[in-house]
């Protein structure tokens, strides 16, 4: 094995955002984040408290990834379980270190929309954000991700951007509010989005809270990013290359996800991408 997939690259990139010794949680429908947490726990963050989404099992060791989060598969090996109110209390009290969130729209300030396209006139009802609204405000650091950054033109030459200038509806709070104030002035527990991992690049947020490109994959360019982003992301002084995961990380991911559940998140055109591993 000399190469890994885009999914494995993204899982490794998400895992790198996790610090040891912190309480970390993922939501449902998030296999990339789920796998990233297990990678972090096994590889570089042994003292991380891994709280599984939906089952709320603590430090589980599932035999394989199930295609649905609320399944007994996912809390096998857990030493104990939280109840749902306790989980959210931990976040509200400022004790949760990191959470992974996404959106069908992600804007330049890291706000996410998972509620509806078009507001107040609904054009498309999205599933809803679960606890993301509360957690985006309460959790110390947020890692965002999306596998659908690339927005090719449709038959009429229009693009439906995933990375938009402004969200139609703010489900999960980023660095600026729905009435264009600074989120930091609200006195929330959390510091908002810190990283965004997409299939085109890695972003952080600058001192203004604006999205900034930090790194690219070996096969993507700044132009790819600019073309698929509705606004102009800021550019870091030096744009790095996202490193490939080590072989043990890739092997671990393949062992934990034999059904390739996480590939449901990856678009068909990205399945062909391969990255050398050392």
């Amino acid at each position, binding site marked *: 094995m000399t190469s890994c997939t885009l999914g494995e690259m993204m899982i490794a990139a998400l895992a790198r955002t996790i610090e040891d010794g912190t309480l970390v949680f993922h939501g449902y*429908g998030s296999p990339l984040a789920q796998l990233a947490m297990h990678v972090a726990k096994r590889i570089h963050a042994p003292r991380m408290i891994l709280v599984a989404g939906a089952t709320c099992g603590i430090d589980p060791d599932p035999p*394989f990834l199930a295609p649905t989060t*609320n*399944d007994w598969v996912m809390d096998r090996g857990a030493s104990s379980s939280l109840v*749902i109110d306790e989980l959210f209390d931990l976040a509200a009290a400022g004790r949760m270190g990191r959470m992974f969130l996404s959106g069908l729209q992600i804007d330049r300030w890291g706000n996410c929309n998972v509620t509806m396209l078009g507001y107040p006139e609904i054009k498309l009802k999205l599933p809803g954000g679960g*606890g*993301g609204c509360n957690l985006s405000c*309460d959790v110390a650091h947020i890692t965002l991700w999306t596998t659908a950054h690339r927005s090719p033109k449709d038959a009429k030459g229009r693009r439906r951007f995933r990375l938009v200038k402004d969200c139609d509806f703010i489900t999960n709070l980023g660095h600026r509010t729905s009435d264009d104030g600074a989120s930091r002035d609200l006195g929330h527990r959390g510091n908002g989005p810190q990283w965004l991992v997409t299939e085109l690049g890695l972003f952080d947020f600058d001192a203004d809270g604006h999205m900034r490109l930090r790194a690219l994959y070996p096969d993507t360019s700044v132009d790819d990013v600019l073309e698929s982003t509705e606004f102009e992301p800021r550019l870091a002084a030096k744009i790095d290359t996202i490193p490939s995961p080590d072989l043990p990380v890739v092997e671990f991911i393949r062992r934990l996800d034999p059904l390739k559940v996480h590939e449901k998140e990856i678009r068909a055109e990205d399945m062909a991408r391969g990255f050398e591993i050392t």
Partner: protein
Amino acid sequence: MSKGGPRPIYTEPDKRVGLEDLAARVKDGAVVAVGGGLSSREPMALLRAILRRGVKGLTVVGSAHGIDIDLLSGGGAISRSSESYVGFEQDFGMAPNYRRAVESGAIRVDDNCCYTLVQQLRAAIQGLPFMPVRSVRGTSFISLHPEYKAMVCPFTGEEVLLVPAIEPDAALIHAQYGDAQGNLLIEGTPVYDILFAKASRVVLASVEEIVPTERLKELRGIRIPYFYVTAVSEVPMGAHPTACYPFYAYDRHHTALYYEAARKGAEAFKAEYLSVFVHGAPNHSDYLDRIGGEKTRARLTSWRDGTEAWKQLYVEDATA
């Protein structure tokens, strides 16, 4: 949202009723909290019985849901949704019936967030009119929910958001075990069921097995004491196609069949799903026959045979 007066306590020694009688207690226009979540322990048999009765105008409150709320949407029973998530995760995607009903205006969108709901239920549980949250401020939920009120804490000067109590008319819960008195034993995550049971005026429960109270005591897992519970019905496989471990795993195969019918459109869903598995199955044993009877039950029980068997239930082309 309190309907006035403390919620009743229920002391009848024998609360056992049939599934249809359980469903008959859900009235048009009620605010209902559906238990379980995503693909686990949702009271699906009870929801099918409610649809067969033609109940209309329900408001649903809850956290992370899927086929339960989508089925009620496709059956035309809901007029307002205060759920925080309705979907089929990354596996199948968005909830087709729910989405259609919302986009057509049949269901009014009143989306909530998980912790906001926890606090609103806690207010009802504690007999208080509201509870504060620090989060939510700055998001669009503030304009979606004009009833939320910001206030400055008189002790610390911090701004918090007050969210009003939610007291559902009925909690609909499916548990592994219960007894005649209404004690409920839930294995695995209770999701919101305990909060729902404490906050709702009426608690309607279906269970896999009704056992003697002595047996429940031995099992040491009564999560919802009897006096919260209004009526209980024994409905084996009552959560199908969602999981009710350890009895049976999630039926991904049936869910795929459901999703395909729902995806095709409202009329196809009526013809291919509702008329077969809901209205076409006048009682629960007819339903069990239609989903493949003993063969299906045995397939979904096979998760106990080990990791390989368990995994096999989720292989894409797994067939009944």
